[in-house]
């Protein structure tokens, strides 16, 4: 038994490691084909980051982590929430508008704005959920459409609510009042840098813990996972699948609503047309790489942030476009899903061989036991 668990752990680790090795090889091949300096590129990408850069990696990973957890909630339920991208933008905008008004004092304003973000994300995801349970519309298609609609809707509402700043072309919401900004956490005890980690890294930790607790330790989480594994079995054990789909979609949307919060409260203090986009799609990649596991996702998010950070210097250090990082990330995702599939199949084959061996051993016994009464 113990040996089998080791083997399973080995198989589990084999896939991500294999994927990263494949990504390394494929990227090297692309660099060679394009006649770019391979050594200089890897030298830059694998360089030990400066303390300041480590802080940036952690900050980027914080945002990625929340996004990936939002995607993972859907995955566990066999739902593909491609709409995290739209959900977080709608939610960030709503929260920025609300918090910018400064109706509530300080921390209360922040707390209510977080709730506003979760509610807006949940509602936006809920549209796709309702279409799925009510009309049988695939959530993939619905969320793709809703992503595009979100882009136009937010840009329309932004135009309506934007504050005009003298001598600037930027359109953005009213900046947060000073007492509603979340101060960064200083890390100069650990690293020699004045840069600060987002205060809302706490939010990412809470989201991760809640994800683990709700899915692994509660009845609801069990039902959710059961529905994801086998809908018929879940129905047989009394799960209301339609309600489950809607709930998990909205839950995923609520977490997606939090994606932009560390940026809003810790860095930008407003929502404008320069806000970072594409975080939702990165979340899908990271959730896949981290296998929907709260700890695995954390490592994957850090890897993503690290690659982003290290690619910044590529142009200067190696004369290669920093877009290379998109290629590396894309190859990692593709090779990780391929590797998981291959490893899964290898695992099944090993399992079959083990069962066959045991059966063969059992067969050896069977005639013997049959032979006694005969």
């Amino acid at each position, binding site marked *: 038994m113990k040996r089998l668990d080791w083997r399973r752990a080995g198989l589990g680790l084999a896939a991500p490691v294999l994927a990263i090795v494949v990504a390394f090889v494929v990227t090297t091949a692309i660099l060679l084909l394009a006649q*770019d300096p391979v050594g200089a590129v890897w030298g830059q990408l694998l360089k030990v980051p400066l303390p300041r850069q480590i802080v940036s990696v952690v900050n980027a990973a914080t945002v990625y982590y929340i996004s990936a957890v939002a995607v993972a909630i859907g995955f566990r339920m066999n739902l593909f929430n491609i709409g995290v991208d739209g959900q977080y933008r709608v939610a960030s905008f709503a929260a920025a508008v609300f918090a910018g008004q400064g109706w509530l004092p300080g921390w209360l304003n922040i707390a209510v704005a977080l709730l506003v973000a979760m509610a807006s994300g949940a509602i936006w995801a809920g549209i796709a959920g309702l279409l799925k349970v009510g009309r049988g*519309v695939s959530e993939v298609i*619905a969320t793709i459409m809703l992503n*595009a609609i979100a882009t136009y809707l937010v840009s329309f509402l932004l*135009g309506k609510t934007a504050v005009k700043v003298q001598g600037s072309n930027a359109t953005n919401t009213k900046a947060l009042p000073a007492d509603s900004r979340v101060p960064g956490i200083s890390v100069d005890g650990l690293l020699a840098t004045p840069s600060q980690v987002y205060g809302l890294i706490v939010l990412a930790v809470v989201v991760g813990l809640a994800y683990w607790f709700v899915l692994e330790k509660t009845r609801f989480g069990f039902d959710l996972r059961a529905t994801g594994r086998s809908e018929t079995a879940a129905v047989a054990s009394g799960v209301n699948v339609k309600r489950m789909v809607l709930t998990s979609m909205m839950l995923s949307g609520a977490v997606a609503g939090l994606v932009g919060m560390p940026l809003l409260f810790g860095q930008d203090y407003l929502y404008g047309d320069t806000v970072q986009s594409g975080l939702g799609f990165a979340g899908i990649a990271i959730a896949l790489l981290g296998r929907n596991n709260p700890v695995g996702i954390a490592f994957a998010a850090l890897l993503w942030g690290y690659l982003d950070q290290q690619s910044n210097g590529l142009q200067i250090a190696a004369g290669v*476009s920093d*877009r290379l990082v*998109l290629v590396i990330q894309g190859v990692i995702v593709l090779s990780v899903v*391929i590797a998981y*599939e291959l490893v899964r199949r290898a695992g099944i084959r090993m399992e079959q061989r083990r069962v066959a061996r045991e059966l063969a051993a059992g067969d050896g016994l069977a005639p013997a036991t049959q032979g006694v009464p005969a």
Partner: protein
Amino acid sequence: MSTTTRPEAPATGPTSARVTTGRHPWWFWLAVVGGAVLVLATVRVITGANDIDSAGALAAAIALAMPIGLAGLGGLWSERAGVVNIGLQGMMVLGTWGGAFFGYHYGPWVGILGAILLGVAGGAVHALATVIVGVDHIVSGVALNLLGPGVASYLAVRTFSDLPGGGPTQSPPLEKLPALSIPGVGDALTSLERSHTWLVADLAGILRALTTNVNVLTIIAIVLLVGTWYILWRTPFGLRLRSCGEAPEAAETLGVDVVRYKFVAVLISGGMAGLAGGFLVLVASNLYREGQEGGRGFIGLAAMIFGNWRPGGLAGGAVLFGYTDAIQLRGSADVIRAFLLPVGIGLILWGAWQLWRRRQGKPVTGVVTVVMGVLAMVWFLLTSRVPDEFTGMTPYVATLLVLAFASQRLRMPAADGRVYRKGEAG
């Protein structure tokens, strides 16, 4: 679900409905098109929004419909073989780079081939992951949507930065593909169109858009559309390919090499998506610019779903979406407002019909439809223009509405999106 509980269900059951969809006689479609022109002409005269079917607007709509339609064709090829392809967007972006690179160095005709080649490369990755390895189709598509733009922009920096007139995110201007006209028709039609007479001017505008300055690639795209219909629905190859999307196990027992058919279909799908990108580069803007595809791969996917996984419907969807795109680009916000009138009336009539037809069932659908129609009318009466953002979201909202209200009429290939492993039949 409600179809089976309705009293008249046996008469219009799912099987008979399926037989009648797409089996209308030719004059039905003629009547639809004729009716649409009549409505357009009337709305134009009532609202005075002359850009509603001017030759300029229609020509722009046709040009903008092509990349959407080609991307949709890409989706059609792959999904008819049972492979969901949401990586169209990524393949399209690869095609924009391919079209620009080969178009700049070897002329626009080679540019077309380059765009197809890069698209096929993207399709090959998707086919490898989904057909050979058996990865989830959506996951692979998402990965391609990350990978495609990454590869394209990396290659663009590498290849366009040092060219005169180029830059890291932009290629130099490209040589144009020729445009064809039927000689001697343009001037007469122009003067007819200028008269703004009811119906006559509208027909003249439509004819002029179809006969003057039509780009060669537009013609190629239309040929591809008709060719796709012919190959998929009128040849043994097409029948086998579609059987892989409907019932791969059954196809396998009949001796069809399902894996090979799926692989080829996804390669063709990639080629179509790549050509869609090539169209943007070689015809629509005459250069490569990062982000120029602007989500058109997804609109193509929407057009395919909107068109019920059929070439004719797809073409209709593409033209509709291309039209909204054109109106938005021309800044004719009054045109979209003018459309609120027929849309509102249509929705109210349709909702009333629903209420009458299902008077014993739940009235939800009918009531929602009527309310939306009334809202459209109110909007029409209270405003003088619709904001650009709403014009932009029209294709996506239209697709969601079709999915929400006509989902019983939609029928995607039965085994679409299912991972198929060889030898599972039996």
